[in-house]
C-alpha cells in the first residue's frame, strides 16, 4: 500500500484497448467501480478481467456473484470463449454465488457482514487470488433490510479489499442522476469506469468512459466497445496519432494501363485510394482488380462490402474474368459483409479494427464507403472515416474505398468529404454522348507521384478492365462508338488528304520534269551554238596563224625580222 503512494502500480486487464486508455490497466491493489445500466456489459468486463488475469497473467481470481449462479455464469461466458469450468478446476478462478432473498430474512437486531468478508477471504485464500470481482454488490441493498448497516459495512469492505492487496472490480447499476443506484461511488474512489449502451436512430453503440482514475492520467473520451465471440474490446480511436511511416513501395493496380497512369508503378503501399463515381461506373471492378492482383502475389486482402454479398461479388468478378474464389479458399481473401445499419459508426470502427488485428491484411477494400453516411451525421461520419483511415494507414494497409456519387451531384464532391484524407483519387464518370454511355477515368490526384492528367476510356470487358485513349481533338472528347466513328471518319479523311497530297506531289514532279526537259533543250541549243562559234573562232585563228607564218617566210625572204610581229598584231586587231 505504501509503495503505491509513490507510484501507482497498475494491473493489466488484458482487455483489448482498455489497457491503452488507462495507460496500463486498473489501479493495482485497489477497487475499481464499473457502473452502467442493465445489459451494458459490466459482468462481462469483470469476468474478462478475471479470466484474462488467470490465463495471461497467472493471477487467480475470485468472482463473487450476487445475480447469477456459477452454472449460469459459466454458460453465459462460454459463448465468449471462456471456459470457466476448466479454470475453476485448475484453481484459477473461484466463483462464489451469493444468494440473498429478502423474504427469507428477518432482522432481529445488530448484525454485520462479517460472513461476506469471511467467504471472500476464504475464496481468496483458497486460490491465492490477486483479482476479485463483486458483481453486483448492490443486490445487498435489496436483500438486506438496514441500509445504514450496509453502508458502514461496504465502507469496511472496500478498506478491507485494499488491505488484502487485491485488485477488485465492483459493479454497480446506474442510478437516476448518480453513477450507481446506491451511491457506491462514495466508497470506491480510486477508479470509476462507466459503461453505456446508447441507441441513436435505432442504432446502438456501447461506450466506455473512465469517469475518474485517481493518481493516473487516462483517456477521458467515450470509447466505443464491442462484445463479440472473443470478448470485450475497447477501441481507443481518438488516440490514433498521425505518425505513420510512408514507403516508396508500390502496389500494382492490377490494370497495366492504370499503373502507367500512376507513374508507371501503381499505388503506394499503405496509401489510401478513393474511387468515386456514379452508379455503374466500375468502381467495384477496379477494386476487384486490385484484390485479384494482390492475392496472386500472395498478399492478404480484406474486402468489406456493405451492399453485395460475398458470393455476389465473386460471381460478378467472374464476369470480368477475375476468379476470386480460389483466394477465398486459400485464406488470402476475406469478405466482411455487413449492412452499415447493422451497428453504429463506432461499432464499425471497432469491427474493422478487430478484423485488421486478426486477419492482418495487406490490402483493404471498403465498398462503398458512402454506405456509412446513412448511420450518422456528416461530421460524425467524417470523424469516423478519418479514424478508420488512420487505423488502416498506421497498420500499413493499402486501402481502396469506393464512393458512390449520386447523379446530378458535383462529381468531385464526395458525400462525406473524405477526399482530403485520400492519397490517390480516381474519378470514374459516365460520358453520355450520341445515345450511349461510356466510362471515363481520371486520376484526380495521386500524392507523391507524377501521374497522368489525361482522361482514359474505361472499358469493362470479359477479360477485365482495359483503359484506352479517348478521342481528343477538334474541341471535343469522344469515347465508345462515337470515338470509333470519329476515328474512322478521321481515317477516311486522312486517306483523302493523303491522296490529294500525293496528287500534288506528282504534279510537282511532273512540273519539275518538264522544267528539266526545257532546261536541257535550252542547254543543248546553247551548246550547239557555242560549238559552232568556237569552231569558227578556231578556224579564223588557224587561218591567221597560217597567214602569219606565210608572212614570216616572206619577211625572212625580205630580211625584215623585226617587223614581222608588228604586222602580226595589226592582223589581230582587225
Amino acid at each position, binding site marked *: 500500500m505504501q509503495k503505491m503512494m509513490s507510484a501507482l502500480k497498475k494491473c493489466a486487464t488484458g482487455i483489448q484497448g482498455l489497457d491503452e486508455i488507462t495507460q496500463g490497466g486498473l489501479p493495482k491493489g485497489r477497487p475499481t467501480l464499473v457502473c452502467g445500466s442493465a445489459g451494458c456489459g459490466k459482468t462481462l468486463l469483470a469476468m474478462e478481467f478475471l479470466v484474462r488475469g488467470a490465463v495471461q497473467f497467472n493471477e487467480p481470481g475470485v468472482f463473487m456473484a450476487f445475480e447469477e449462479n456459477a452454472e449460469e455464469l459459466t454458460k453465459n461466458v462460454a459463448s465468449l470463449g471462456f471456459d470457466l469450468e476448466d479454470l475453476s478446476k485448475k484453481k484459477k478462478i473461484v466463483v462464489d454465488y*451469493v444468494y440473498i432473498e429478502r423474504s427469507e430474512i428477518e*432482522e*432481529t*437486531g*445488530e*448484525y*454485520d457482514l462479517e*460472513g461476506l468478508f469471511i*467467504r471472500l477471504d476464504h475464496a481468496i485464500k483458497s486460490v491465492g487470488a490477486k483479482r476479485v470481482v463483486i458483481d453486483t454488490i448492490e443486490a445487498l441493498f435489496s436483500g*438486506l433490510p438496514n441500509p445504514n448497516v450496509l453502508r458502514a459495512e461496504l465502507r469496511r469492505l472496500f478498506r478491507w479489499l485494499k488491505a488484502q492487496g487485491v485488485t477488485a472490480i465492483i459493479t454497480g447499476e446506474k442510478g437516476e442522476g448518480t453513477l450507481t443506484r446506491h451511491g457506491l461511488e462514495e466508497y470506491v474512489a480510486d477508479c470509476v469506469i462507466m459503461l453505456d449502451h446508447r441507441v441513436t436512430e435505432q442504432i446502438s453503440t456501447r461506450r466506455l468512459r473512465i469517469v475518474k482514475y485517481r493518481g493516473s492520467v487516462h483517456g477521458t473520451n467515450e470509447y466505443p466497445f464491442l462484445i463479440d465471440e472473443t470478448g470485450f474490446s475497447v477501441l481507443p480511436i481518438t488516440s490514433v496519432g498521425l505518425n505513420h511511416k510512408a514507403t516508396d513501395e508500390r502496389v500494382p493496380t492490377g490494370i497495366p494501363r492504370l499503373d502507367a497512369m500512376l507513374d508507371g508503378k501503381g499505388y503506394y503501399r499503405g496509401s489510401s485510394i478513393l474511387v468515386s463515381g456514379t452508379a455503374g461506373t466500375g468502381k467495384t471492378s477496379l477494386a476487384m482488380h486490385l484484390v485479384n492482383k494482390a492475392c496472386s502475389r500472395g498478399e492478404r486482402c480484406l474486402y468489406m462490402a456493405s451492399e453485395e454479398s460475398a458470393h455476389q461479388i465473386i460471381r460478378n468478378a467472374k464476369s470480368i474474368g477475375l476468379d476470386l474464389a480460389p483466394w477465398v479458399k486459400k485464406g488470402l481473401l476475406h469478405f466482411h459483409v455487413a449492412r452499415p445499419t447493422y451497428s453504429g459508426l463506432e461499432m464499425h470502427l471497432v469491427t474493422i479494427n478487430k478484423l485488421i488485428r486478426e486477419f492482418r491484411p495487406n490490402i483493404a477494400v471498403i465498398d462503398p464507403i458512402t454506405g456509412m453516411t446513412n448511420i450518422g451525421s456528416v461530421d460524425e461520419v467524417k470523424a469516423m472515416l478519418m479514424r478508420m483511415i488512420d487505423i488502416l494507414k498506421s497498420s500499413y494497409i493499402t486501402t481502396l474505398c469506393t464512393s458512390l456519387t449520386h447523379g446530378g451531384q458535383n462529381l468531385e464532391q464526395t458525400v462525406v468529404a473524405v477526399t482530403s484524407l485520400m492519397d490517390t483519387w480516381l474519378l470514374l464518370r459516365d460520358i453520355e454522348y450520341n445515345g450511349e454511355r461510356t466510362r471515363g477515368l481520371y486520376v484526380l490526384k495521386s500524392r507523391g507521384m507524377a501521374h497522368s492528367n489525361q482522361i482514359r476510356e474505361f472499358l469493362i470487358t470479359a477479360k477485365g478492365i482495359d483503359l484506352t485513349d479517348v478521342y481528343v481533338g477538334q474541341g471535343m472528347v469522344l469515347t465508345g462508338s462515337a470515338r470509333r466513328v470519329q476515328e474512322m471518319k478521321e481515317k477516311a479523311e486522312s486517306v483523302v488528304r493523303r491522296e490529294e497530297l500525293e496528287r500534288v506531289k506528282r504534279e510537282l514532279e511532273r512540273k519539275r520534269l518538264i522544267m528539266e526537259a526545257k532546261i536541257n533543250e535550252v542547254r543543248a541549243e546553247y551548246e550547239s551554238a557555242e560549238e559552232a562559234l568556237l569552231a569558227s573562232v578556231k578556224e579564223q585563228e588557224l587561218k591567221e596563224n597560217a597567214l602569219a607564218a606565210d608572212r614570216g617566210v616572206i619577211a625572212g625572204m625580205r630580211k625584215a625580222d623585226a617587223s614581222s610581229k608588228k604586222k602580226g598584231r595589226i592582223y589581230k586587231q582587225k
Partner: protein
Amino acid sequence: MSAAAKTEKKTSSKSPAKNRKALSKPAKGEPAGEIWELKLYVAGQTPKSVTAFNNLKNLCEEHLKGIYKIEVIDLLKNPQLAKGDQILALPTLVRKLPVPIRKIIGDLSNTERVLVGLDLRVGK
C-alpha cells in the same frame, strides 16, 4: 449463561459438522413435535455473537423446550461453511428444520421479530 455459551461455541466450533452437540432437552408439558434444528453462524466471540447465543438459548428454553438443537458454527474456524447456507450477515440464525428454511439475522435481541421469523408467533 454467558459461560455456557462460550463452552457451547468452543465445542461446536471444533468440529461442528460432525459433532453436533445439541442442547436438546425433553419437553416439559409442551406438545411434542418435530425437533427444531437451529444453526447459529458467528465469527469468533464478538459481543454480538455472545448476545445472539444467549438470546437464542433463552428463547428456545422458553418456547421450544426439549425439542430443539442448536449448532453454533464459527466461520472464522470453518469459513467454507458460509457458502452452504448462504451466510452474509453475522450473526445469522438458520432454522434448518422444520422446513422451510428460515434465516434470521442480527443478535436476536428483538424477541418479537425472532418469534415471527421462526414462525413461533403464529403457533402460539
